[in-house]
């Protein structure tokens, strides 16, 4: 099958939408866990990352989609996106360490430097910040919204993985589960933005 035939039946609007949502989820999670500086330095936003994955698969050089191997396009590209995302944080972390070294004129042990560098929010140099579990962050974000707290408990503590399982467990419709996930994504983004403004002393998002 030629590279052109592999994408003949693909609905690119749908693929792009799903990858963009996944990228936004990953960015929100990483920011909440203290990697906002690294992401900012990497210089790519979630929507741009999703686009780059589609451009790469169309190019058929570094990313080669082979439907004959079983994976559907969304599943395959979601894995590519997750790998690219991880590379992005690695790159941002490397840049951050270089900047800290230059800023502090220290010779080594940049991770212990308390000095904020270009972008500041959670102290990325503090490994403890990264160990915060997403469950705790999500619970904090959901404070005052009992239905969201219930959802976080169902997702993390009750082993309900799929939307249907979670809906059954909580006695709501699957659409309501999607609604709660969406609200949590918004709340995590809001909290990350507020943290960045607080530490940076700026009103910009």
């Amino acid at each position, binding site marked *: 099958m030629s590279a*052109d035939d592999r994408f003949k039946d693909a609905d690119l609007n749908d693929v*792009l939408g*799903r990858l963009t949502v996944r990228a*936004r989820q990953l960015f929100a999670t990483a920011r909440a866990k203290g990697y906002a500086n690294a992401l900012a330095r990497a210089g790519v936003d979630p*929507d741009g990352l999703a*686009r780059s994955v589609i451009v790469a698969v169309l190019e058929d050089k570094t990313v080669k989609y082979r439907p004959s191997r079983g994976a559907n396009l969304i599943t395959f590209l*979601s894995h590519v996106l997750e790998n690219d995302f991880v590379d992005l944080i690695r790159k941002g972390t490397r840049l951050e360490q270089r900047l800290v070294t230059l800023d502090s004129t220290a010779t080594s042990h940049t991770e212990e430097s308390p000095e904020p560098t270009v972008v500041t929010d959670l102290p990325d140099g503090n490994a403890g910040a990264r160990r915060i579990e997403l469950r705790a962050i999500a619970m904090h974000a959901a404070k005052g919204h009992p239905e969201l707290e219930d959802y976080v408990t169902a997702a993390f503590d009750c082993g309900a993985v799929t939307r249907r399982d979670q809906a059954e467990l909580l006695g709501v419709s699957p659409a309501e589960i999607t609604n709660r*996930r969406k609200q949590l*994504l918004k709340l995590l983004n809001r909290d990350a933005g507020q943290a960045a403004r607080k530490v940076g002393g700026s009103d910009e998002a």
Partner: protein
Amino acid sequence: MKREDLEKHLKEIVSESETLFGNVAELTSEELLEVLAETGASPAEIRDALYRQLDKVVIEFRMSGKPVPPRYLEAREQLRPLSEVPQNVEAAQRHARGWISELLKAPPTNAVGELAPEFHKKAALTEEDQRILDEAIERLRSRMQGNRNE
């Protein structure tokens, strides 16, 4: 931070993120549009951005005198904004079909038709006039409802 610790944290981000937000493949098309619209740039904006990016790639191919692989042209056509007219006949027809179906899309089911009678002296209507008017409004409403359900 040690390299192994970083790698462990990166794996956690990916897996915890899926635990919290679920698998994007589970979303219906309507839910997908809603999530996109409420958590960042709108679906139209993200589509337009990729369209522009692919358009640049197509132009680069042409500028360098190379044939454009059909998958790029097909992808670009799928993403073309409704306000832009396609250049080839097949794409133009597909584009027109999309445009017409957008125009013919039924109004939201909760939309209630409001009828506004044009009477200068509505207050002077007799009870009989009012009854005839109410019946006419009722007939029109049920006809509109019937059309919508077809």
